[in-house]
């Protein structure tokens, strides 16, 4: 990986940004600490000087200047290495006592604290870098007292601390930058691996998966890859379904289209009468095709979930009764008995057209597959929250293995492909309508025959009724 790419890598930039932020924060914290330590030290120092002055002032008040001078003399003697410096001068500025030789010029009046660097340098003859702090005081007899203290030790300590701090920060930044570069390289490598895999997959090889890292850590990155792979699995599965579906569509529509084409091709050889017949047949064939297309579109639209404004307060028992009445002649033609067990009413919020269609498809199937003189039962159980609809026939039924597949578009049980008319879309639509209503469809065994149970909530789960409630009940 070349260096300029590292510098431009997003991760590297983030790392540098983070490092800068942390360094700044550390610097601010340390600066505050430094200030706090310094402030504390000088506060203590000032208190010490102040206390000493007070003590000497009491001596002065009790015994006068000579007593003070004696006390100062004692103190100077006592401290081998001078901790504190004293100077007592008379009203004219002549030295009376102390270990300083001359009253510094820059010291003011009263109790103020002053920096004495230059003055004390000349009086002590010590190196220029020594820092002092001191305070002057006037006594009633005109003499003046100066108490001072150098703070070389602390300032050296602080200087050292500052140096160490700056060096440490520099080291942090350098180490951090290297770390950021390494991290960035690692991430860059991981991401570009993933990117390469995605590019391959995008190029069309959907069977590819992103390699999951060898190390078994369950980190976010690994989870990301695993989830991404799951997503690919799902997409692959959906695409396979789609493929299957379009294969089915192509297959199921090719047959009637081919038939239509052949009929047209034959048309010119037909005589007038046969031509009339042929045209009628072709019209029927085209109508069937249109019906299939319409059913497909309808299922697609219902599945897309867009058709919600058809929902309105309505009585599902009435819908089912209408369906039964509508299909009664068809059952009568086959001498089938249809037992209808419905509650007087079961109001709820449904799409009445779609429910009619779904129930019609189910009853149509029952009539189609039940034998001549067969029995069909339509039962409705109306619970407070849900309604359960059952269509049972004594036809051939559906083998358990195929009970899920019959909901697929164009899927038809092999045995029924030849014997019964139909386009293989009826149950797909029933399922789509059931899903739209938030319900479920279950296929079971009626021993013999098929038992279809559709459970629907009487109120839609989500609050999508705002527009539908305003629509007039048709």
């Amino acid at each position, binding site marked *: 990986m070349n260096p300029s790419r590292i510098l431009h890598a997003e991760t590297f930039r983030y790392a540098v940004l983070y490092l800068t932020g942390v360094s700044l924060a550390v610097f601010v914290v340390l600066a505050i600490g430094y200030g706090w330590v310094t402030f504390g030290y000088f506060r203590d120092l000032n208190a010490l000087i102040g206390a000493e002055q007070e003590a000497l002032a009491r001596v002065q008040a009790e015994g006068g200047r000579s007593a003070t001078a004696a006390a100062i003399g004692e103190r100077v003697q006592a401290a081998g290495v001078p901790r504190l410096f004293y100077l007592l001068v008379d009203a004219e500025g002549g030295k009376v006592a102390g270990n300083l030789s001359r009253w510094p010029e820059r010291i003011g009046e009263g109790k103020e604290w002053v920096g004495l660097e230059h003055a004390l340098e000349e009086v002590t003859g010590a190196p220029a870098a020594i820092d002092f702090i001191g305070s002057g005081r006037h006594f009633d007899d005109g003499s003046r007292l100066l108490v001072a203290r150098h703070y070389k030790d602390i300032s050296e300590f602080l200087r050292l601390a500052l140096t160490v701090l700056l060096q440490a920060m520099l080291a942090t930044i350098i180490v951090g930058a290297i770390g950021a570069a390494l991290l960035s390289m690692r991430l860059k490598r991981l991401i570009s691996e993933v990117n390469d895999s995605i590019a391959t997959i995008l190029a069309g090889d959907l069977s590819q998966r992103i390699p999951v890292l060898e190390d078994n850590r369950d980190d976010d990155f690994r989870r990301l890859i695993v989830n991404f792979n799951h997503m690919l699995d799902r997409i692959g599965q959906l695409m396979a379904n789609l493929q299957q579906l379009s294969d089915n569509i192509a297959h199921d529509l090719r047959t009637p289209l081919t038939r239509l084409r052949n009929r047209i091709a034959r048309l010119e050889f037909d005589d007038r009468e046969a031509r*009339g017949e042929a*045209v*009628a047949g072709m*019209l*029927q064939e*085209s*109508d069937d095709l*249109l*019906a299939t*297309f*319409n*059913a497909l*579109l*309808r299922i697609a*639209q*219902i599945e897309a979930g*867009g*058709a*919600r*404004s*058809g929902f309105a307060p309505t009585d599902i028992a009435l819908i089912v009764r*209408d369906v039964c*009445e*509508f*299909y009664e*002649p*068809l059952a009568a*033609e086959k001498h089938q008995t249809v037992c209808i067990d419905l509650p007087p009413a079961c109001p709820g919020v449904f*799409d*009445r*057209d*779609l429910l*009619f*269609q779904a129930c*019609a*498809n189910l009853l*149509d199937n029952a009539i*189609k597959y039940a034998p001549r003189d067969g029995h069909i039962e339509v039962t409705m159980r109306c619970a407070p929250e849900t309604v359960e609809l059952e269509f049972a026939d004594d036809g051939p039924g559906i083998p358990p293995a195929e009970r899920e597949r019959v909901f697929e578009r164009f899927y038809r049980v092999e045995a029924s492909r030849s014997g019964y*008319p*139909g*386009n293989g*879309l*009826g149950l797909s639509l029933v399922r789509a309508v059931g899903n739209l209503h938030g319900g479920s469809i279950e296929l079971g065994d009626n021993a013999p025959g098929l038992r279809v149970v559709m459970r629907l909530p009487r109120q839609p789960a989500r609050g999508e009724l705002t527009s539908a409630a305003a*629509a007039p009940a*048709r």
Partner: protein
Amino acid sequence: MGVQAAQRCVQGANEMRILVIEDDASVQEYIVRGLRESGFTVDQACDGKQGLLRASTEDYDALVVDRMLPGMDGLSIIRTLRGADNHTPALILSALGEVDDRVKGLKAGGDDYLVKPFAFAELLARIEVLLRRKDASSAVTRLRVADLEMDLLSHKVVRAGRALNLQPREFRLLEYLMKHAGQVVTRTMLLENVWDYHFDPQTNVIDVHISRLRQKLDKEFDRPLLKTVRGAGYMLDEPEPDPAR
């Protein structure tokens, strides 16, 4: 066949003018040619604004309006016309085709709604119903086709002096057919108007209902009134094709 039969029943309606507002050239061609062959005078517009202009400045007997149009959509056109007190019957064409859209279309002031793809016979039958609706405004209590009579108040049906015993649904079926006597009525039109459901029967249930009705209506009489128009639907009409009509 279907078209021919339908054509016959609009003869004499040559003065009927229809405006087709449709942006898809091939669909427009299909509709316009079919309507012209059926004896209508047809104007066309291929975008919404032009369509609205023609519909509001000229006098038409019916409009065929596509739902999705460049410039201005079909529902806005109809809404605008209705707002301007123009009540020319309008049939909305749509590729969307769910109950949703049908409700929206009819709310906007459309008189009928047809989903693409459709058979031309379906369109023609519906246009004819719209045209008829325009002049049949007064409330009727008795319907009459040839020797068949229906009393809408007493719910009695008599053919050639003999009372027919009809089930309620058969009565409504016959009522609808009689109200549109001489017009082709498609299966979906029957579903929508007699059963009041918008749906797609997978089988020939309607045909079974019709044949039951036919049993009661025509079986014992020489001249059948209820005809099947192949590829389109049904028509209740005077028994003998009358060339002068």
